[in-house]
């Protein structure tokens, strides 16, 4: 390691962490699992004055049942979340998406909060939070607030998080037992960020789609919630759907870009097919939690 010089602090409480962040006046960076940050520090692409290690704050770790949902502590390691019984039982889409994050080695240190807070637009966990309707709990010395995941992301690696703020929890709302899981990802190699991906959940009751949450990843500057498709699906009977035209609608909810791995046109083309296939499969197979 040959980073630019920084002060290292390891607060023992959220309050202490928030005080440090506040006093640093924008010069602090929070380190959770370090799987993205440490290479960036080494290459000096990131040069904070203070590195705030939140690894010693017990409240930030673990998965808990809360009223109406599940609260995931941001310091929860990805490997631990993958094994977690609560998540497996209640949020299968989350677990499915998580299994595509990085590799065994990086998941041993990488955290849920790190992935959610980084805001990589082609990553799985931000899109999962958006699709499932999660709320991000944020603390600072100014107080605590909750932001819907959909409103949390502003652009690539840009979120509403202020420099003095810390993500203290991600709260995923309950999805009823038996809901359908949607997850598809195309990445050039396993563990890579997606060229195109989609994640979400569907609830069918009484032969009608009663609830739906879907989001793209790798299809725009942030996770792209499929708002119009969600509205269109709401209350419909699965066998009455025109998946082709829905897929066009879904793609029009995205804002894909050109990069050197794929063109926007590729993402639109393949995204449409992915939508048709994954929604079709989910409905046909009744793939359940």
């Amino acid at each position, binding site marked *: 390691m040959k980073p630019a010089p920084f002060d290292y602090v390891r607060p023992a409480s959220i309050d202490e962490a928030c005080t440090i962040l506040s006093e640093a006046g924008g010069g602090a960076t929070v380190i959770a699992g370090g799987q993205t940050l440490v290479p960036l520090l080494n290459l000096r692409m990131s040069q904070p004055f203070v590195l705030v290690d939140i690894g010693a704050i017990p409240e930030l770790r673990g998965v808990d049942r809360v009223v109406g949902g599940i609260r995931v502590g941001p310091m929860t390691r990805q490997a631990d979340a993958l094994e977690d019984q609560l998540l497996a039982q209640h949020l299968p889409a989350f677990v499915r998406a998580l299994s595509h994050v990085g590799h065994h080695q990086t998941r041993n240190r990488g955290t849920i909060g790190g992935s959610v807070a980084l805001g990589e637009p082609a990553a799985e966990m931000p899109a999962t939070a958006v699709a499932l309707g999660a709320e991000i709990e944020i603390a600072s010395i100014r107080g605590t607030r909750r932001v819907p995941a959909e409103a949390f992301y502003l652009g690539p690696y840009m979120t509403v998080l202020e420099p003095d703020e810390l993500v203290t929890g991600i709260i995923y709302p309950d999805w009823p037992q038996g809901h359908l899981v949607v997850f598809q990802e195309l990445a*050039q190699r396993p563990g890579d960020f997606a060229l195109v991906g989609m994640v979400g959940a569907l609830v069918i009751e009484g032969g009608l789609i009663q609830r739906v949450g879907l989001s793209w990843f790798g299809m725009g500057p942030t996770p792209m919630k499929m708002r119009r498709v969600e509205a269109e699906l709401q209350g419909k009977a699965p066998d009455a759907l025109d998946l082709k035209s829905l897929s066009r609608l879904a793609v029009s909810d995205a804002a894909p870009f050109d990069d050197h791995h794929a063109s926007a046109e590729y993402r639109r*083309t393949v995204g449409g097919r992915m939508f048709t296939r994954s929604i079709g499969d989910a409905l046909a197979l009744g793939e359940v939690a």
Partner: protein
Amino acid sequence: MSEQTLIPSAGSGAARWIGKRVERKEDARLLTGRGQYTDDVVLPGMLHVAFARSTIAHGRITRVETSVAAELPGVHAIYTARELAAQPITMMSFFFTPSEVPITPLAGELVQYVGDPVVMVIAETRAIAEDAVSLIEIDYEELSPVVTIADAMAAAPIHPGTETNVASEIGDEEPEEDLAQALQGAHCLLTQEVVHQRISQAPMENRAILATREGPEELTLYITCQSPHNIARWVSLALGLPQTAIRVIAKDVGGSFGLKNTPWKEECAVICAAMLFGRPLKWTEDRYEALTASNQCREAQMRLSAALDANGRLVASHAVYDCNNGAYPQGADNNIAVHMFLWAAYKMPAYAFLSRGWYTNTNGLAAYRGPWAMESLIRETLLDKAARRLGIDPVEIRRRNLVYLKDQPAVSCMGIPVDDITPGECLEKLVAHFDFAAFRKEQAQAREQSRYLGVGIAAYIEPTGSAGSMVTMTGELAQVRIEPTGRVTAMMSTHSQGHGTATTMAQCIADRLGVAYDDVTVFEGDSSRGGFGPGAAGSRQGVIGGGAAIRASEMLADKVRVLAAHLFNASPESVSIEDGIVHIAGAPEMSRPLGEIANIAYAEPDRLPPGFEAGLEAQFRYQPPPMTLTSAAHLCVVEVDTDTGFVKILRWISSEDCGTVINPGVVEGQISGGLAQAIGMVLLEEMPYDARGNPTAATFKDYLLPAISDVPVFEFIHANTPSKTIGGMRGVGEGGAIIGPPTLVNAIADALSPFGEIEKLVLPLTPARILDIVEQRDVSGFGASHSEMATAPVADAVQEPEAPPPMPENSQEQSAAEARSIDGDWNMVLKTPMGPQPMVVTFATDGAGGVSGMFSSAEGSQAFDGGRLDAGRVRFDLKVEKPMKITLKYDLLIEGDIVSGKCKMGMFGSAKVTGQRA
């Protein structure tokens, strides 16, 4: 799967080690983290280096401000090009020729690529050095960047004092009349175009050096490299120091691929700074530097035309090849080997080409595992296209054109003698191993379900084990001794880059000496022990090092026989060595451990035969034939998802003939590694530059190397036709990276054939580019942004040396100059593929149009006669012996005191000649 043909042992033992899949001696150390790489070496008083690098691709440095950085605690020194010039260094190519354009370790006046080192900081730690770098200010006057080959063709030269951006050129601009006719008049004329992306070498171990001056003229370098001996030689020449003054150590190396053939800018800066500053200096490249500032490779484009008759037999061919040399290549290069080997394994009657390398404001070009691999890629993909066009099976079209053993000896259209190649035989073995009929049936059924399977084959030959053909390529040395304990140690001039030469060389020695493999230890990696050897370059160590180890061991076994025969009053022929025990035929009671005999050899001179040299040592420097050819045919099966453009490799079979296989595991490891890189080049890897010349894949997030999940389990068929070398080995280090790309591309093209041809092969075949073919529209966006990417027509090429020199203003002077005799000395430069060769040519005319004369260069002098002078045009032939027997046909135009023209050099094509009266 492997069919072993063991060659008879010339040695003594019953236990055979050559051909065995023994565990590698290196593995326990390397796999438990106990390897010693350059960065692991720590010396007392060592300081660290970091570089301030150019952030623009092309510009003039107007100001360098280092005073703030110099104040930083822990900073010991800051050097710019000006300070570093106190230790002069002549940077040379891979061929040991000084660079055509001046190269200094640090940029002086001009920066020529993003990442060009401008200032170096020496500090207590690397982190402090980088802190200081961030405090250095460099101002530039920005010049317009020349990034692509098309840019280079159109733009003014980037290097001052040059006339064009042509770094190197060879061949004929126009195909001659009869070739043009053969092409146009043929039954079928096919053209294949390939645009090969730029590749990052990406070794696991990045570049690193630790240089320490240990006396006024004593330098020790720890440097990750391809041969400590070659580096010592290069550095001694570059610094003008005796080679004995320089010790180079590189115990373990994590891959080189061609990148580490010579030290380059950063390493040279560290060497010079260590000479000046006097304390040990270390620089270890980080991954960002490695991806953006290490020499890169491959970027080239080629258009190949080939004519076939109605039976699918090759008639004639022509090609235009252009490669991007970057600003400071490790030798200006037009990649002549592409043309030498393009048709060498095929019955191709006529071929001509133009080959050019271009300077651009990008990172310099270095060799990379099969640097000429474009030839196999473009030929084999063209042949499959031809097969589809003519309705011939891809196997069949190769059967009709490949040079089989029964067709040999033969001489290729480029003059390469071909007398022991087996690409056709490898293909037959491969075909016997794969049920084509069943596959075609499965393919047809799959297509009905909209699943697209494809099979691809390719065949090739490859030059390996090069020695004596160029100054840097020599033989290899084995020094083997039986220690007084009976254990065997060997010092080899070979060098492992991870190939496991400590294993394979030990196998050769154990086999021929009759000792246990475990009892043999091989040392390499230090220029102060062992003799000179070029090391790991050009698939040569198994061939030449193996041959040296075998012969030295046989010589040593003979010595043991003589001694044992004397001690036991037996005949040398009755002595054998088996598993470290010396036996006398018919007298089992006389069997003795080798150690007992060795102890006598060292410690009891009275018991030695008269004239017997004490000790048990032997050495042999093996100078093999100049080139040993390896052949192979590969096959792979893919499934292409036509919804997403993703390619899945289902099966891959390698049928290679690398002669005697020393260790199947090592051979298969070499092939697998090359194939992994091939898969990367075809599907994943690309180092893109933006229009401003910024390399845009700065981390492994964007530069996609093949992972284990992208590489299938390969199947191997070994043909084992011994070569003419000692031991019968053929090189195998590069082959996978050469034959892999066409094999995979052909399989993809076969899968996609219902949709159309890959008209222009643009690598990598990303999912988006696959969809371009499937959907026959521009999904990838490549067409829109690169419509001009085709090879520029030859006629549009920048004019250069062929153009007449400036005319004197006064025409009377002109005619007077013409009338002047050409007699006397001329300073000329011949632009050969290995670099420019200066020489003095002395002409003597006889007044009747006859010309004779003398060529003099550093290598010696040679006379010629029988030349003709006609209206200022001088033509003559020069027969040379080095680097090989060849007739050079000179055709020069003399105008006043200026001479220009070309020299036809047989298989090397045509080279430009320029010069003036001495």
